[in-house]
């Protein structure tokens, strides 16, 4: 068998694939963060909580409403998006004129409150959520056993990321968004309802997080804590990528997922810090991040 650094190529391929799956979550989450940041200048600390909410709403729909995975994949992000819209209307809106750090602090508090509430209501050991029947089982790829659901995650996350990218780069709504990112006031003077646009953007970002959450539900335990650790890693991903472009957020997400996956093979002890280490190196070499535009 061919070996690379003492690891069979076959195993390596498997690990690369797994890295890509994790990267799918990073990409979806950092994409949402980037969209929100781009327009609202808010670092959405509650992104992890919204990811968790997505998974939880899917769980609750199933447990109490008998609504299965497929409808939940749409309904849960919509529900969380609506919640996001309400939050934006009632609270975030009041912070736009202030130092962006206040937005960070507010969403931080919100993350605590949401997580606390779910821990209070549902405990912390997590809730079960089964893989949808259509995607159960797995296939043998020769070099690894790939659960079909994991394959689905890669495909659907790519589709959603590219879809979002197209939405922003190629549509009228996207043009409004991009323009408003550059000069909010002017777009408003032209007669575009920017306040509404801001609400929609936050809802979209929150919805993307929730979508990632629903995708995660059959893989990870649906637990109130599932978002709080991943969000810090996603922050590091964002620092590495730099808040320059939507594409940047997506690409960095996948690449760092793979980097982390490889570390799990070669030096598993470091796999939880590898992204932070990469972040430190990037900061030394390119403080603006790989795709960042600002100096």
């Amino acid at each position, binding site marked *: 068998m061919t070996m690379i650094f003492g690891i069979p190529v076959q195993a390596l391929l498997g690990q690369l694939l797994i890295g890509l799956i994790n990267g799918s979550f990073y990409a979806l989450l950092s994409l949402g963060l980037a969209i929100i*940041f781009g327009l609202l200048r808010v*670092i959405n600390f509650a992104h992890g909580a919204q990811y968790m909410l997505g998974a939880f709403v899917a769980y609750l729909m199933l447990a109490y409403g008998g609504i299965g995975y497929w409808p939940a994949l749409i309904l849960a992000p919509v529900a969380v998006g609506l919640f996001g819209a309400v939050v934006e209307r009632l*609270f975030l809106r*009041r*912070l736009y*004129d*202030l*130092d*962006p*750090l*206040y937005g*960070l*602090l*507010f969403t*931080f*508090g*919100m*993350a*605590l*409150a*949401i*997580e*606390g*509430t779910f*821990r*209070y209501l549902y405990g912390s050991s997590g809730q079960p959520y089964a893989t949808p029947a259509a995607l159960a089982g797995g296939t043998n790829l020769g070099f690894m056993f790939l659960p079909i659901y994991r394959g689905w995650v890669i495909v659907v996350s790519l589709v959603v990321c590219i879809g979002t990218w197209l939405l922003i780069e190629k549509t009228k709504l996207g043009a409004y968004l991009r323009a408003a990112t550059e000069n909010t006031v002017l777009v408003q003077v032209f007669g575009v309802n920017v306040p509404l646009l801001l609400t929609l953007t936050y809802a979209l970002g929150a919805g993307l997080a929730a979508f990632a959450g629903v995708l995660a539900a059959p893989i990870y335990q649906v637990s109130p804590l599932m978002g709080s650790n991943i969000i*810090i890693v996603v*922050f*590091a991903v*964002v*620092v590495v990528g730099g808040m320059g472009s939507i594409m940047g957020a997506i690409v960095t997400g996948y690449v760092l997922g793979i980097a982390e996956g490889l570390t799990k093979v070669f030096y598993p*002890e470091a796999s*939880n*810090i590898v992204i*932070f*280490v990469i*972040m*430190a190196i990037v*900061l*030394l070499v390119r*403080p603006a991040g790989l795709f960042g535009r600002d100096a």
Partner: protein
Amino acid sequence: MTDITETIRAEKSRTALSVQAGFLTIGLLLLLLAPFFFYPIFLMKLLCFALFACAFNLLLGYTGLLSFGHATFFGGAAYFTAYTVKSWGFPPELGILTGVVGAAFLGLVMGYLAIRRQGIYFAMITLALSQMFFFFCLQAEFTEGEDGIQSVPRGQLFGFIDLNNSTNMYYFVLAIFIIGMLLIWRFIHSPFGMILKSIRENENRAISLGYSVARYKLGAFVMSAALAGLAGALKSLVFQFATLTDVAWQMSGEVILMTLLGGIGTLIGPIFGAGLVVTLQNYLATSEFPVTIITGVVFMICVLIFRRGIVGEFYASWVGRKLGFVYRR
């Protein structure tokens, strides 16, 4: 755009100064007498966190840098002190010194990386780096993992004051707290503090006057880290253990809350903030209500309608203005 560090104008009126002096005297008296009325361990904890919050505020309130990683210095110093005192038999004063130096070193490393970016990025980077430090502490041998370093002896201060006596310990903590506060005060009102202030006011202008802004920020970061370390080192002696909670990111969040609640950029605000948070946590522990929810909600309310914090609101209030305090942006 409103800067997060709304500042109090340097020259308060004479009345304000005398009111302040009055408050200070009363405060000091209360602190001296407090152990006769309150539970000393609780008071010591309060002082430790108050010092921690003030150290944090030194950075946020006076240089405008929001660090989301101060737990690293607080908890790191706690580990260093606990370890050297317990395993190497250092006397308490030397143990605390080790903690402070260690924290300053951590501050130097983290600061060196983080000050390359500003604002929210700075916050995210410090958060990520402190998470890295958390994992380090979790995995490192000397921290004894989730057990923590337990049963740390308080020892004899200068070889003759027995710190196991809780009254002695209290006055020792109080003394350190006051020294820490004086240091912060001196630091803010020093030539160096003046430069920090001007950097915060107009960074580009400061550069064009030849100040290497990065170094001044790094200097402030290290000082803040060292003082946070002082608080952490002290805490490890008070409670006689050092554990992972002190290096976790939630701790960084708490110190932000304390500062925000008390009043960012006010010298004494964080003391009130720390007092409130510590009391609240203690109270909530035995109540029915879950702590995280309350903490989160308090955070949200503070940011939305209470940004100046307790002390800041007082300065800006009718009474405060009558007394001659000036609070402006």
